[in-house]
């Protein structure tokens, strides 16, 4: 990919500027249609039609209509807000999320940058959006916003630990941190995916229960990091109105929303890459047509969208946790269980 673009444009600078463009386009289109998906899925679950005016019964043009409406809205500055920080916060949040996409491996021929410490980079870079949320909550000069941002910090900082521990299982098995390597190692069909023990002999069967649990922990804790229900205490609308988003309107609100939906796909991408084979086809090379680089895009995005659907599904099924329940779940259940998984996988690797 790198070499190909370098051949076309003949300049390092232009090549480096071109590579993020598909990522950015994907994030924008995905975020627009994820909002529609959320509304449609919730409508289906509550037995009502949902958006059905723009673009026929499916509401397929609704995101475009929404975008035009939001673009026209006035950007409101609260009277006692801190002007500079208030303008800056949505962009910091969105940038932090978008930076995470740099290492998401969409296919064997396309990844933003194949860092050899990709996974570590992802965990580090998500903390930037936390800073954005803190700044946004503080500068709005509203106690509900402030509570929202304080909750977001407590939540995201604590849930980083089970996320990292669950991912550590796979890092130990694979012996790498590069996202492309994770995908390459899981070649050869569904039985070689890391959730089923990864490539290896028959003895890997004893690992399967631990890895399934680790995958569940990773999914739960990344759900909390993306601030989705049942962990959406940051914007709990029945308790603190809308948390950090409260004072924002128009395009700035859109930035927050885009960041949230983009984060949903990013964390799904991490779960898919680590446990479900990334861009590998579940049939391996038995059906070569299904494992070409372009089909790999479809596999990866399909698996990612499935997890996004599960996240939406959970949002409209589960009630929200209380703050103390949230902390209890993290520190008393997820972290010890994840530690047991790490010990089991470590023991297996030593023996």
């Amino acid at each position, binding site marked *: 990919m790198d070499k190909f673009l370098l051949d076309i444009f003949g300049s390092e600078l232009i090549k480096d500027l071109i590579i993020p463009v598909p990522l950015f386009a994907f994030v924008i289109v995905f975020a627009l249609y994820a909002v529609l998906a959320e509304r449609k899925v919730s409508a289906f679950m509550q037995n009502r039609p949902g958006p059905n005016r723009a673009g026929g019964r499916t509401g397929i043009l609704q995101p475009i209509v929404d975008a035009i409406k939001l673009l026209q809205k006035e950007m409101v500055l609260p009277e006692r807000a801190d002007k500079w*920080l208030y303008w800056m916060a949505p962009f910091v949040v969105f940038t932090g999320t978008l930076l995470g996409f740099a290492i998401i491996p969409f296919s064997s021929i396309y990844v933003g940058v194949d860092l*050899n410490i990709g996974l570590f980079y992802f965990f580090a870079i998500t*903390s930037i959006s936390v*800073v954005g949320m803190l700044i946004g909550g503080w500068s709005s000069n509203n106690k509900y916003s402030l509570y929202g941002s*304080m909750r977001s*910090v407590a939540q995201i900082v604590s849930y980083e630990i089970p996320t990292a521990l669950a991912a550590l299982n796979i890092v130990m098995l694979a012996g790498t941190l590069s996202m492309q390597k994770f995908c390459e190692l899981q070649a050869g069909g569904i039985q070689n995916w890391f959730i089923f023990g990864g490539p290896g002999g028959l003895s890997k069967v004893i690992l399967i229960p631990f890895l399934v649990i680790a995958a569940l922990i990773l999914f739960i804790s990344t759900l909390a990091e993306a601030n989705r229900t049942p962990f959406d205490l940051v914007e709990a609308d029945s308790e603190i109105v809308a948390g950090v988003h409260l004072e924002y309107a128009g395009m700035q609100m859109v930035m927050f929303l885009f960041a949230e939906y983009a984060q949903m796909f990013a964390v799904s991408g991490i779960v898919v890459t680590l446990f479900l084979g990334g861009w590998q086809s579940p049939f391996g090379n038995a059906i070569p047509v299904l494992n070409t680089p372009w089909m790999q895009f479809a596999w990866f995005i399909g698996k990612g969208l499935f997890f996004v659907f599960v996240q939406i599904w959970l949002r409209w099924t589960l009630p929200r946790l209380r703050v103390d329940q949230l902390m209890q779940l993290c520190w008393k259940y997820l972290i010890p269980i994840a530690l047991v998984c790490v010990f089991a996988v470590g023991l297996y690797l030593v023996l």
Partner: protein
Amino acid sequence: MNYSTVLFYIFALITIGSAVYLVTTKNIMYSAVALFISLFSIAVLYILLRADFIAITQIMVYVGGILILLLFGIMLTRKVTEVDITSNALNVIPSVIFAVGITAILIVIMLTTKWNIRAPLNNEVTVNQIGKMMLTGYLLPFEIASIVLLVALIGSAMYARKSKQ
């Protein structure tokens, strides 16, 4: 001129500029945000030096840990308890002397050292080497650091817990 050189100068300027703003501004929240920008552009400088592991660790530790704690502390003290904190300058003359002295020493060192310059190697995997060194040659410092962290954890948990009286 290579465009990474241009990037270096841009981010070096941002680092110094935000650091100067950090110490001169009166608003403590602005100081924290300037610190964020400064720490982040230092991470960019590490990347330009091809030390990607250190760069990510810089973001993880300083931006993800220390800076968020700082912001959290400022928010708790200022908006919740209605105490207005301003960061006034104290001990201006000694600190200026100290800063000028350190700058002079650094410039002298920079000009007198013989630098070993070599072409950068592409895609060096440094994580494996760092991991091996931590568990072989530098095991004792590594373990001592982890014990210090554990003690700090237990201590903070003890202070945070309500006393029984």
